[in-house]
């Protein structure tokens, strides 16, 4: 109700909102998100996963230009957001963080509340430390409907499973979406051409991974990132509990099934949360944050070297394959790159439990 009053106000500001995009399609505003979670910012577009609505929205938020400058740290971010939303910090759930690498603006997907009245909220923290509310009704968007995605088998009926979107990445002219189903355990990574067309649909890719020696399995991919291995585009994927697997994007081609290469196992009882590529003293690393096993730093050279070896085959302990070192980060909630030499970290202050958003030089990671 209040939202509607606000929509009218916002629409008045931007006057008439229907215009025609270069490709002839009518641009629509006010995306009807039922929830908001995974974010990815690329080229002025913020991809936002709506798990409840089974949809990925491409929100036209715009992009800045140049390089992000210094980032003014924000203390008690959750308390400030709560004040602005008229609620308490324990009712503010920050789901993801995505930085516009040109302007340095940090987008935060937030759920306000957790029950029947839970509402999706989008906020932006600019490098000067200012917190901005981004009203959905002002945003032009296109969308990708996941609920209507075909099942793994081409002739299968529509699949009403409820998939939680855990990660979204734009790789070239395709958007890849990782998700967890609340019923099937199978790993389906979805892919759709970008830009989304009027009736965009995602196709499912089954990525198997070898377990030690004699078994291969499927599991949900939780987080992933593009990596270049031997000059070829690959995806490095973190699975639930917790193998790290690589597979070739080119090899995917038109195939819908592929066996990835298991390059490491990082221990049980853990969910990998986020993966970043960082550069430190001229060397490339993968920074991996986890639900229970802290933040790991893996040399990219080891990921590359693992390509020349067979998948993990020996029966060994919980920590196997490509090795990692711990990164001296605290209670990390979310991370993203901030330009080439820093990352932006949302972390919990161990003193008072509130959230702090700040930039950290890569060389201290």
């Amino acid at each position, binding site marked *: 109700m*209040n939202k509607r*009053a*606000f929509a009218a106000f*916002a629409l008045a500001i*931007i006057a008439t909102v229907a215009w025609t995009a270069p490709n002839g399609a009518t641009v629509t*505003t006010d995306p009807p998100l039922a929830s908001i979670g995974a974010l990815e910012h690329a080229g*002025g577009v913020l991809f936002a996963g709506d*798990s*409840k609505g089974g949809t990925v929205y491409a929100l*036209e938020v*715009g992009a800045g230009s140049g390089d992000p400058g210094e980032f003014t740290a924000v203390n008690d971010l959750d308390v*400030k957001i*709560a*004040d602005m939303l*008229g609620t*308490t910090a324990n009712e503010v*759930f920050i789901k993801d963080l995505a930085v516009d690498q040109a302007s340095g603006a940090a987008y935060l997907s937030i759920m306000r509340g957790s*029950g029947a009245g839970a509402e999706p*909220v989008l906020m932006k923290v600019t490098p000067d430390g*200012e*917190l*901005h*509310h*981004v*009203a959905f009704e*002002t945003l*032009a968007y296109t969308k990708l409907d996941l609920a209507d995605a075909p099942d793994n088998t*081409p002739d299968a009926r529509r699949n009403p499973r409820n998939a*939680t979107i855990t990660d979204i990445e734009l790789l070239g002219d395709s958007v890849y979406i990782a998700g*967890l189903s*609340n*019923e*099937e*355990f*199978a790993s389906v990574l979805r892919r759709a051409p970008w830009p989304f067309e009027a009736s965009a649909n995602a196709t499912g890719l089954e990525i198997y991974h070898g*377990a*030690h*020696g004699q*078994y*291969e*399995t499927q*599991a949900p991919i*939780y987080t992933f990132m593009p990596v270049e291995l031997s000059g070829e585009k690959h995806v490095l994927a973190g699975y*639930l*509990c*917790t*193998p790290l697997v690589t597979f070739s994007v080119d090899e995917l081609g038109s*195939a819908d*099934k*592929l066996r990835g290469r298991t390059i490491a*196992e990082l*221990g*049980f*009882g853990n*969910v990998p*949360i986020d993966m970043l590529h960082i550069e430190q003293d001229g060397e490339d690393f993968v920074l991996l944050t986890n*639900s229970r096993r802290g933040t790991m730093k893996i040399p990219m050279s080891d990921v590359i070297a693992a390509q020349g070896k067979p998948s993990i085959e020996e*029966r*060994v302990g*919980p920590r196997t394959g490509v090795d990692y070192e711990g990164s001296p980060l605290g209670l990390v909630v979310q991370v993203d790159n901030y330009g080439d030499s820093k990352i932006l970290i949302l972390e919990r202050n161990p003193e008072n439990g509130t959230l702090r958003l700040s930039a950290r030089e890569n060389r201290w990671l």
Partner: protein
Amino acid sequence: MRIAGSESLNTLRPSIQRAAAATLLALAAFGCSAESGAERTLRLTGDQESGWAVTLTGSEEAGELQVFTGGSIELSAERIAVLGEVSQGAAGVIWTPRYTLRPAQQYTAVWRPSAGEVLSATFTIPALDLVASTVVVGVYPSAEVVPENLLRLYIQFSAPMSRGSARQFVELLDDDNEPIAGAFVVPEQELWSSAEDRLTLFFDPGRLKQEVGPNLAAGAPLSAGQTVTLRVRREWPDARGAMLRESFERTWRVGAADRERPRTDTWTVHAPQTPAGPLRVEFPHALDAALLQRMLTVETRAGAPIEGEVSVAAGERDWTFRPVVPWEPGDYSIRVEADLEDLAGNSLERLFDEPLVEEQVGRPALGAVRLDFTVGSG
């Protein structure tokens, strides 16, 4: 492309400055409600149903009307105003929040005219009268014995639940009533049905998969011969914020691991005996309760879908289909999706952890399996 005005409607810094100024004045003039003889009041208007608002009456002038989260004494220079919009209504100047104000939460409204005294008032939004009525209505698998490599459990509630706190309110206990640590993997998002009334709990897949590191290091979460109990605590808030009417416990015996794919040639199909009669299928081993609801469908031999109601019973070993419209005599098929899984995640197509055979990836998908039956004319 960029849209002019797509930016924020509120920014932090101006709000802080305004809040700081307003606070000082509000503290000085708290309780003051009159200026130059005109009776000016700040009132909480509206209701839970249509939404709450703050209305300023007795003033033609809009001034600056802001609302802060919390009571007035909590107001400080650090405070940020609640997102909202001010408009002129018939009753006075109205502040409407961007997001619904929370029951039982305190808010402080501050009105600052262009000249004169500041007016402020603290309101508490009425608490909801919540009755603890939500209960656990079922847990699946419903059979008494589950395989050692059980992949998932479903907890069905009678009403939508809140998200994000499952880990605090559900646990699995061993024979000695001790919690089994790390049995489940609960991703931060939690896996709920679209109606938000059924939670899926996955056992740690790394510990279930044979011979992977976690399995070797920590073993499978369950072991044959054991008795395990799922406990759901009463304090778990439902979607309204009320706790459950009662706590819930359910016990299973753990049997041998299931490492076989379900095979449709072991199923028994009972064709309908009368035009309105049910179609039944019996399975020798239990299948996944949720997937049975949608991975078996009925169609004519020509492939036209038949609508009907599905029920699953006997520990997920019995599937019954009742058609909406009585059967016409003729030939039909039950279409079974190859992704249908048993309790251990083995599907018609593949085992949860399949022996590694090079040809397997890239082999053609099994697709759906059709089980034919005929409805007679008599």
